[in-house]
């Protein structure tokens, strides 16, 4: 078996609403290797979750995958072939209160997945469910297996959700902001658990978050997403050491504690636009401190930048030789240099 689990090529997911067509995911490409954690980072509304849902085939009407390919272990999934790989790709959602059905016991919901993917029933299923709960670090699993989601704390619930995902015996785990709804200490525990499980099971992980700190800690490769597109992709160290795209720089600058001084945390003014048409310009240009004339007229292509060995790409005209403006010096912050 090849080491590439997931290969996404030029994925376009659009939503046809009555008023307009929204390009939620607009031509993204990435792949996930076995044992690798790929991060997807961006603001709310940048298309991270739609990417995840596309990978799992959960895009619902009026949304549709219009173009591109999603290959899992070499099999094309686009076109309704998810059923053959159900369970090979599992997902952990953001809010564990919502991803567990409150009217069934936690054990019941784990057993549901076990029955489908491992054909376990009755006592065997219960034993397997208890084992899974123990694996994800729930104490007194034999008792808690018959408890309801409301009897679990937030972190416990997320562990239970992970147990359900593991019940499918997946190869690829998609984590859609799994720690966002949890408080910081629990976040750390869940991240540690995911890391441990990944090493044990040799899982590929697609990790979606808006938290740069979490990205730095957990991922191997990072894709920075903005308005449905990847504006920068790089190995995590490379990205944090040498960010190229002004948006990435802005994101990094707005992590508390990363910027020196301590006056005011820099922010990126404005918000993510909703992409309703084919881009003819750089979508970040209206918020970009380094935007110049060409940015409003040319849609930037992804080009290799930085360390030639590092597989570092960005979509910014600043790095395109055809255009005059030269790249900003490193260290200049993206909000226009108002910071200390």
């Amino acid at each position: 078996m090849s080491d590439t689990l997931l290969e996404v090529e030029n994925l376009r997911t659009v939503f046809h609403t009555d008023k307009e067509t929204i390009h939620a995911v607009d031509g993204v490409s990435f792949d996930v290797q076995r044992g690798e954690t790929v991060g997807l980072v961006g603001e709310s509304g940048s298309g991270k979750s739609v990417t995840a849902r596309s990978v799992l085939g959960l895009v619902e009407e009026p949304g549709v995958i219009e173009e591109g390919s999603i290959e899992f272990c070499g099999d094309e999934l686009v076109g309704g072939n998810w059923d053959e790989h159900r369970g090979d790709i599992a997902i952990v959602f953001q809010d564990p209160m919502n991803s567990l059905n409150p009217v069934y016991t936690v054990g019941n919901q784990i057993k549901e997945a076990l029955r489908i993917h491992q054909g376990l029933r009755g006592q065997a299923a219960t034993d397997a469910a208890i084992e899974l709960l123990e694996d994800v670090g729930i104490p007194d699993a034999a008792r808690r297996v018959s408890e309801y989601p409301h009897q679990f704390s937030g972190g416990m619930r997320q562990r239970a959700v992970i147990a359900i995902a593991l019940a499918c015996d997946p190869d690829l785990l998609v984590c859609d902001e799994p720690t966002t709804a949890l408080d910081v200490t629990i976040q750390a525990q869940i991240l540690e658990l995911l890391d441990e499980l990944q090493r044990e099971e040799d899982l590929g992980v697609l990790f979606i978050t808006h938290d740069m700190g979490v990205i730095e800690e957990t991922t191997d490769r990072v894709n920075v997403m903005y308005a449905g597109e990847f504006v920068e992709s790089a190995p995590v160290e490379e990205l944090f050491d040498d960010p190229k795209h002004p948006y990435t720089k802005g994101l990094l600058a707005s992590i508390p504690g990363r910027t020196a001084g301590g006056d005011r945390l820099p922010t990126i003014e404005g918000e993510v636009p909703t992409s309703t048409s084919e881009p003819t310009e750089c979508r970040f240009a209206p918020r970009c401190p380094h935007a110049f004339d060409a940015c409003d007229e040319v849609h930037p292509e992804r080009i290799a930048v930085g360390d030639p060995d590092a597989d570092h790409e960005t979509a910014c005209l600043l790095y395109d030789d055809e255009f005059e403006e030269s790249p900003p010096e490193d260290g200049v912050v993206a909000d226009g240099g108002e910071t200390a």
Partner: protein
Amino acid sequence: MSVNGSRVADAFTDGRTALWALVGLFLFLLEAGAVLNFVVSLTIDGLLAIPGVDAVGFLTAVENAVREIPTLLSRETIPNQGYFDGSGYEGTFLGLSPAMAWAFRATLVYLYAFAAFGWGVWGYRIYRREYRAADWTPRDDVFDRFRGHKWGIFGLVIVFMFVTMAVFAPALGPTTVDQNMRNSYGHEIDYWDSDSGSVETILVGDANLDSLSQGNDQNVEPWTYDDYGRFHPFGTMQDGSDLFTFLVVGSRISLVIGVLSVALSASIAATLALTSAYYKGRVDLSMVLVSDAVMAMPQLLLLIMLTTVLRESWINEVYSGGFLLALIFAFTGWTYMWRSIRGPALQISEREWIDAARSFGQRPTTIMRKHMLPYVTGYLLIYGSMTLGGAIISIAGLSYLGLGVAPPTPEWGRAVNLGQDYVRTGSWHISLIPGILITLVVTGFNALGDGIRDAIDPQSDSAGGETAGAGGGA
């Protein structure tokens, strides 16, 4: 599994539970015959109407065998049809007057029904206190809110009395449908002839002819005896038969048609609502179109047309045409319920656990049944109880027009129709009493629906809610 086993064992060693079970067994034994009779006769009526089933002999044998089982509340145990023999009553319970004997039996029936209800509540409380794992569940709040809802309680009492009437119909009437209406010339009664001063015998049919209620000249009022010593709690009808017996048996067919049509339309509505909420988009749109098309059909015209067209077919034989009515009601009425349930179903379909189940490959039907249905059953209950009132009004309306349930099967609407010529005379009771009963029962069902809605969803405004009971139309 072992937990459940030990719980059952506990139940019999624990005094309170054992007592509860004993009381239940006692209550059941008192009425075992009647319960079986009710179930068996309903099933047999249904079976006989299906073409190709030729087991009349066997089925009637079963029916008769069941009828032989003694029960406390039967007319054999507490008879009211006796006669005066000059010195006292013969053949009535303890020699009471027929009116008292009948009243005693009717009271006993209702006491029994309320006792059975109380027994159920008692059992639930024991379960809640001793056996349920959780101390509190959201359902407890629902019950508590309902208990404080006076209007809802009123509805529950009315509905409960109506259901009791339907279930105990044979025991409640002062006489039987067979003896008094269907086959009145096949039965004889003894009566005290004050002219000759002796006990005479007369055919029921002839006695009925002398007990007509047709205006001021000839009238047997409510709560009186006729010339043959027969007691009529609601008076007689225009043909001399007993109105109370007619109404009691009529309640049965109203209830059966109502429940059947509502259950059918609720299951159609729930299935389609869950499907459209799960698949959304084009599936949803096509269902909106279908339901709009069905809604656009005039229900009354369709009813008249279909009952006429299908008059000769076997399906019109089941429950004197009641089954056909229920089917038509279900297939024209599901749209309203579907519309009401679609919203909540769409809401539920957005929850993440639906996506989670889809992501690990659960089948769509299982997701709908297991992860979506529990959230719409509350709405089904509310709209179901409200539509039931509407269905009962519609059935009565159709019978009033001479459609629907075929004579001689008693139906409330037909009683209203039969008595309408005498409304302004002394025989007002023939139309008025069934009319009041229909109003009361429909109000009861609507009140119950309101109560359930306020109990399930306290945020809903009971004043602003529109009642589906108005959907009767006919």
